[in-house]
């Protein structure tokens, strides 16, 4: 099928303001959803669910959240891990303290709690910008690290903050095997991605982007930085917190604060930068890249060493992984600072013009 937008005339603004104004895009998305919801659960084996697909879905959700704050609103954060932690532990507390609270509600309340904390830690953004803000968000990271490690109330008095959940179900649907976990996360991601897309194409999204691009001009138009920035912090933290709750409840089932360390924060930031700042699609690309890369390297390096007759030790592999990972990040930033999403859209552009390049 050719990728063409000619002939698809829009006669109303409503038609022009659809999420995917081009028909071929709509079909592609529909196809992807069908594959994701039907084909994959039937075909894929357990290892892939556990090692790649579930982490990918959850981290994509978190990356969308980070992208809302960093990519759309222009506020750099190095504390995303903290909001995952808040989401996970808050959901945990709702789950164990309120008898019979449905799982879905616990998870969403985890997200909401994270949104509130996000607003508090977003306050510095009203006074400082850029890299100063980035460092300020580390305050959130180290503070929550400490809280969940040292204050036993939050972790049901368990030692060193390690907690676990079991026997999860939603309205009678047992979420215990990889396929059900995968589907549960997929539903979350699909709905949240849609919400994010809607927000970013509406007034609130334009407010965020205006603040990002030129905050003085935004103010002059009547955008209140207070509302725009704090709403971005809140929405972002809601997404990230929900992802945190899923990560704890669904992916790990038992976890401790280290699951949401500053490394996690960096990882999420990598995802949105490599995927593409300011695009929802890019968040997914970035998450896929970061989730898959270490696994590929892990499989590939010993094999490569074998070809040259070198036996690479486990430690050697993990060092090489670090080097290659770091190198790839730098390479990416140099070659395509706008991320995978940009490659994707230039690809589409080419396809649209094909076979006449100009």
């Amino acid at each position, binding site marked *: 099928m050719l990728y063409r937008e000619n002939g698809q005339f829009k006669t109303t*603004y*409503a038609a022009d*303001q659809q999420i995917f104004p081009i028909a071929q895009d709509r079909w592609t998305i529909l196809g992807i959803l069908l594959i994701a919801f039907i084909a994959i659960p039937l075909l894929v084996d357990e290892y892939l669910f556990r090692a790649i697909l579930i982490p990918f879905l959850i981290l994509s959700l978190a990356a969308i959240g980070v992208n809302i704050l960093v990519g759309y609103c222009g506020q750099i954060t190095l504390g995303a891990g903290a909001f995952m932690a808040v989401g996970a532990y808050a959901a945990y507390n709702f789950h164990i303290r309120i008898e019979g609270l449905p799982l879905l509600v616990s998870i969403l309340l985890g997200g909401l709690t994270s949104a509130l904390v996000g607003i508090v830690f977003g306050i510095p953004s009203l006074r400082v910008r850029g890299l100063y803000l980035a460092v300020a968000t580390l305050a959130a990271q180290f503070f929550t690290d400490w809280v969940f490690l040292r204050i036993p109330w939050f972790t049901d008095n368990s030692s060193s903050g390690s907690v676990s959940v079991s026997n999860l179900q939603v309205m009678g649907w047992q979420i215990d095997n990889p396929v059900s976990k995968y589907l549960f996360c997929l539903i979350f991601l699909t709905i949240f991605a849609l*919400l994010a897309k*809607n*927000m970013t194409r*509406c*007034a*609130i*999204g*334009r*407010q965020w*982007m*205006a603040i*990002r*691009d*030129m905050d*003085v*001009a*935004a*103010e*002059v*138009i*009547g*955008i*209140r930085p207070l509302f725009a920035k704090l*709403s971005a912090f809140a*929405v972002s933290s809601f997404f990230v917190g929900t992802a945190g709750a899923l990560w704890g409840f669904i992916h790990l089932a038992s976890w401790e604060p280290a699951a949401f360390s500053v490394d996690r924060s960096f990882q999420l930031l990598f995802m949105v930068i490599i995927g593409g700042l*300011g695009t929802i699609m890019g968040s997914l690309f970035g998450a896929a890249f970061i989730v898959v890369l270490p696994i590929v390297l892990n499989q590939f390096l010993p094999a490569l060493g074998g070809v040259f007759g070198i036996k690479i030790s486990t430690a050697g592999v993990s060092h090489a992984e670090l080097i290659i990972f770091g190198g790839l990040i730098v390479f990416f930033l140099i070659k395509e600072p706008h991320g995978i999403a940009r490659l994707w859209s230039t690809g589409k552009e080419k396809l649209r013009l094909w076979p006449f390049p100009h």
Partner: protein
Amino acid sequence: MNHQIGDVILDLKNVSLAFGGVKALTDISFDVREHEIRAIIGPNGAGKSSMLNVINGVYRPQQGEIILRGEHFARMNPYKAAKAGISRTFQNIALFKGMNVIDNMMTGRNLKIRSNLIQQAFWWGPARREELAHRAKVEEVIDFLEIQHIRKTPVGRLPYGLQKRVDLGRALAMEPSILLLDEPMAGMNVEEKQDMCRFILDINDQFGTTIVLIEHDMAVVMDISDRVVVLDYGKKIGDGNPDEVRASPEVISAYLGVSH
């Protein structure tokens, strides 16, 4: 439509502004009448842009007050100014680089948006209807400024002259009652300047918008403005209709004398 020049709508009293040791404005007073085109002229660094920034609250003057439709403000802030119907363009184009033309202009509708975040997230009825209504309004401005062909272009890719036009479009999308223009024709060629002049006159004429204009091109200023304020080194050295200003010896020596 014909809008008669009316009463004083905006009155500045003894405004002084300094940045550290630099006195950008010293004890400036002048007024703007409803529906008029009021020009501010002066050599580089005279404090013209600072004046506009004081009017809509981007800079906070140390002294003086602003009286807008009879209401006194010791300090304006940008939000209050926007609420009161003041919009503006910028000397160094301040468009939102990451967005296309339509989105830039849609931001101008921001104060008129009523739907909330949740409704927008769900693309709920009110949010959707509102979005479409504002889009229609923005399209009117697009037609008015004759920029239909670039509506989906990211503003960063536009040539300078068109960027200035989009900047004006964003300000117009607010449906302002007072429009502040900071050198809207700087860096344009003759043809673009003529277009811009036409737009300014049309805006003033059709919508009755009061316009405060900074411009270096004397011919244009003398041509289209009703009254002119002259600043030099942060001080007011002339105020009156174009002919008076042109005849003032002080102005000639300080400003016209320099450029000729």
